[in-house]
């Protein structure tokens, strides 16, 4: 299974990929490889994180065709939305991505990740809200493993904030599936 997360530098896309990979590799004891690509800019350039998840050893470590595509910027959407497997799911941040150009029959989920983060007063946790949403809608990783991985990966003193962001995203994700 391949998960691709795309957005712009500063959103914490690569950290999100790292947290997902760690949840799988350390807390679910499956194999995971995380790679990334980004431009030379410190912030604002387009950036991608790929996470490959497998029950077996992963030979080829690079992403090819994602099964889950999570996009948090219009540029990332424009560049990646057509590179997707037939049964893959697409998740977009609904306030940052206009997905009307998406014509395929894949299931599309719209997550208000950045809006939820802003409502919490911390736009910076939008990536963690999105991870919660991803955990809620896709069969990629368990809630428990993600929670542990987030706690392990965020700066000390921000655990509560990040867990709240994760739970809010997760609830939204679960509700989106139910609807």
């Amino acid at each position, binding site marked *: 299974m391949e998960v691709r997360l795309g957005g712009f530098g500063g959103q914490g896309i690569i950290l999100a990929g790292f947290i997902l*990979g760690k949840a799988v590799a350390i807390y679910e004891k499956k194999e995971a490889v995380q*790679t990334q690509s980004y431009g030379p800019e410190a912030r604002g350039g387009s950036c991608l994180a790929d996470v490959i998840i497998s029950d077996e050893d992963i*030979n080829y*470590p690079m992403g090819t065709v994602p099964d889950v595509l999570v996009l948090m910027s219009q540029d990332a959407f424009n560049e990646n939305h057509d590179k997707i497997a037939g049964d893959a799911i697409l998740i977009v941040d609904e306030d940052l991505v206009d997905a009307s150009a998406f014509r395929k029959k894949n299931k599309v989920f719209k997550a208000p990740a950045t809006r939820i983060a802003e409502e919490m007063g911390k736009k910076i946790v939008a990536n963690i809200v999105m991870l919660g949403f991803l955990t809620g809608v896709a069969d990629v990783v368990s809630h428990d493993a993600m929670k542990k991985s987030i706690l392990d990966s965020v700066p000390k003193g921000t655990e509560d904030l990040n867990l709240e962001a994760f739970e809010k995203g997760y609830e939204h994700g679960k509700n989106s599936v139910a609807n």
Partner: protein
Amino acid sequence: MKAVLTGSHFMLGDIACAEGALAAGCKFFGGYPITPATETAERMALRLPQVGGHYIQMEDEIGSLAAVLGASCAGVKSMTATSGPGFSLMQENIGLGIVTETPCVIVNVQRGGPSTGLPTLAGQADMMQAKWGSHGDYEAIAYVPNSCQEMFDFTIKAFNTAEKYRQPVFVMADEIIGHMTERVVIPGPKKIKLVSRKRPKRKKNYLPFKPDKDLIPPMALAGEGYGIHVTGLTHDARGYPVIDEETQHEMVTRLIEKIRRHAPKIWEFEEVMTEDADIVVVSYGAASRSAGRAVNIARKEGIKAGLMRLITVWPFPEKRIKELAESAKAFVVPEINMGQISREVERFASGRVLSVTHAGGGMLSPEAVLQKIKEVAK
């Protein structure tokens, strides 16, 4: 903080390299940041003070390796990490490290070249530079990791080999491995085998470059009270410059033989399904992961392919290539350069050798390797 972070981690390759160095007892890093090796330097800058070590950011890579050699002469396990352009600048002092027999580890997280090339993208085109980059005759030792775990493990190996043979040893990683994140399992400190340089037993009559039977001289440290002299000039057993043919012959021959004689103990490789292989794929580093996938697919399609994955590219495991060449019909050599090690395989394989090249900037694809395997299988 501990030097050995025992446990399971989800860790960036470059960071695993730094942790490997710390686990090996490295206490000095002299370097100059360069993509894609900066994360190793950053990690060492953070961690070395925690374990009583020292990190110095030097003015450039020439100074970096000079500082590393100095620290090693003072008795501290030392390293640097760089990429192509920095590796080029280090070549002069690599020669100094060879001729002064100063153990140290030099990590090259290879990016696309020549020159400034592709700072953020992968290459494996410094393999021959690792062999021949400094002037004069010498034998190189280079480990090539293909996973984050091996960034940890092989950095320890590199330190051990450097200490054992008293010579700079390379870890020839690449941007793909350096910048990927995987599980890295760090064992308990007691489970990590460490080697330290051979030390002289008495000061009387000590000659710093007089070798034992294994051709390796015991090493006295600067400031310990031994009479030592260290120079880049051709020198005798005292370490004093002697500019003549005989001394040159004796010194260069010993430095070369010190490695060649022990090469079968140094070289390492891993084989998968080579027992009955008609086609042997020889690969290393990031490219070997594509090679592994291609070999698996070829087997499923009924082609007798096998993989010989080089753990050391230098010394090159020529003996094994010769053996495999007795039964294999062809060798396929995928690498992220224009055919550097392919030619090395050719020197020892009597059969056909086909190169799968990639100019750099990305991962060599399993499909390219598979296609070449199928071509030769016909």
